[in-house]
């Protein structure tokens, strides 16, 4: 294995580096905070000849997704990054990217939909029914590694579905971390040149799109199911070359052995949660932690297994559904475990909306509440909003928190 240079860079720079070593062939991008440094870095690479790809300074995200979809159709490896309102603007094209089965990878430094530039997962949660694989990463190293793996997953003929690699806006995108940069020759071994199954070419005029025939939609669902195995394989193959593994690629367990309750969380909150759980374990509390990395395809098997092991599952997530009373991950997890003959109790903790901090004490609160449910077998409240004002009121009400 070649030397992995150690550097101190931001999440955005890490993404740009991954795109470079993945030898992407066509890039289109429109700036949007907090993604802009990715596009700036990529245009620098292109301007310096370090990355031999046209950088299409597209005039908007709706056009951006269309452009990279068509470019992928010609057989190129393509990339863009967008988030928040930009992803929402591209929604029409995001919803139909998977129909032609041309692989596309995008990076999303999660930004809340609404009038803020800061992080929550409302942007990508709104695209959870779009037919994109969605992988949430915890830190800059993981997003770099996952972007490279994403190309391998998307281009696999068992999958051929587009991939969104998510990382927290500002929290991960703009903070510097010490990370290891994979060497080009090793990435080439892991990720060879794309071999398209079929392409748009005058020599073979193909009809690569249909009017949503149900049978085709079923094929897409099959592809999503195949993707679970392909993601796991890519995770392992990557670890063999670069020495870093992320659970099984779909989820990752942390200190779950002998736990009574497990807290599930996503993205950068995982980093904070590791600290809390490690501390609580030292204090003798039987709490475990699980990272939900692959939101799509949803790792149903991992959660069914978890259901058989613990008495309570807490879900700490950075989004909410405006009307179903809880968050998206809670719904998925609960629904997945519903079919088990013995079901753990489940509670939801909504935190970090609109970029608000997810503090040590918030994660601690979630862990303690989940443990309490495991011990008493009673759920007093199903959904907690970890918002300081509401928590203060809760504290007054119960004398706890």
């Amino acid at each position, binding site marked *: 294995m070649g030397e992995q240079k150690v550097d101190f860079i931001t999440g955005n720079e890490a993404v740009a580096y991954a795109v470079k070593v993945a030898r992407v062939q066509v890039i289109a991008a429109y700036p949007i905070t907090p993604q802009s440094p990715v596009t700036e870095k990529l245009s620098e690479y292109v301007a310096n000849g370090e990355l031999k790809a046209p950088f299409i300074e597209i005039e908007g995200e709706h056009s951006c997704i269309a452009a990279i979809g068509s470019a992928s159709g010609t057989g190129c490896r393509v990339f863009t990054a967008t988030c928040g309102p930009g992803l929402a603007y591209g929604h029409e094209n995001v919803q139909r990217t998977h129909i032609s*089965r041309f692989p596309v990878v995008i990076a999303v430094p999660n930004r809340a939909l609404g009038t803020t530039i800061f992080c929550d997962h409302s942007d990508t949660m709104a695209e959870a029914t779009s037919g994109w694989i969605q992988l949430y990463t915890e830190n800059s190293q993981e997003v770099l590694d996952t972007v490279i793996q994403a190309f391998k997953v998307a281009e*696999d*003929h*068992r999958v*051929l579905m587009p991939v969104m690699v998510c990382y927290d806006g500002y929290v991960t995108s703009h903070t510097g971390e010490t990370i290891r940069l994979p060497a080009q020759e090793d990435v080439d071994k892991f990720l060879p040149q794309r071999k398209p*199954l*079929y392409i748009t070419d005058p020599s*073979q*005029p*193909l*009809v*690569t*799109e*249909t009017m949503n*025939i149900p*049978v*085709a939609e079923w*094929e897409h669902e*099959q*592809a999503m199911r*195949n993707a679970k195995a392909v993601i796991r394989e890519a995770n392992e193959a990557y670890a063999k070359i670069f020495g870093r593994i992320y659970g099984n690629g779909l989820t990752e367990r942390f200190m779950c052995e002998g736990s009574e309750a497990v807290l599930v969380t996503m993205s950068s909150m995982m980093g904070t949660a590791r600290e809390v759980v490690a501390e609580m374990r030292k204090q003798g509390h039987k709490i475990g932690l699980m990272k939900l990395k692959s939101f799509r395809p949803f790792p149903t098997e991992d959660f069914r297994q978890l259901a058989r092991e613990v008495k309570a599952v807490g879900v700490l997530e950075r989004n909410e559904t405006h009307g179903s009373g809880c968050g998206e991950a809670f719904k998925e997890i609960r629904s997945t475990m519903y079919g088990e003959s013995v079901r753990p109790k489940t509670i939801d903790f909504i935190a970090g909306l609109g970029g608000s901090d997810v503090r040590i004490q918030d994660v601690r609160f979630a862990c303690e509440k989940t443990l309490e449910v495991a011990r008493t077998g009673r759920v007093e409240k199903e959904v907690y909003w970890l918002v300081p004002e509401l928590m203060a009121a809760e504290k007054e009400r119960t004398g706890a928190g």
Partner: protein
Amino acid sequence: MSSGKKTPQGVGVPVTEKQVAATKKRISAWAWRVFKPVFDQSTCKMCWACYDYCPEGVISKSDSGPVVDLETCKGCGVCATECRFKAIKMEREER
């Protein structure tokens, strides 16, 4: 569009446009056309305005003059209107 053929990995292989055409049930224009063009080859000066202006492109050039594919001709009448030698007449189809 799935050709019904799948790769070993279960991916539907798309079809070509020609294959799409072959699967469609073609209803011949004979079934619904009201007027059809009739060419008087003796009057025709082979200027090929009809060939140029036919919206369907169903007029082809032969050494003896224009030949129309009546399977697909819609009977719109543009050719007859544009023929400045009056070599084309629109005749009502008989049923």
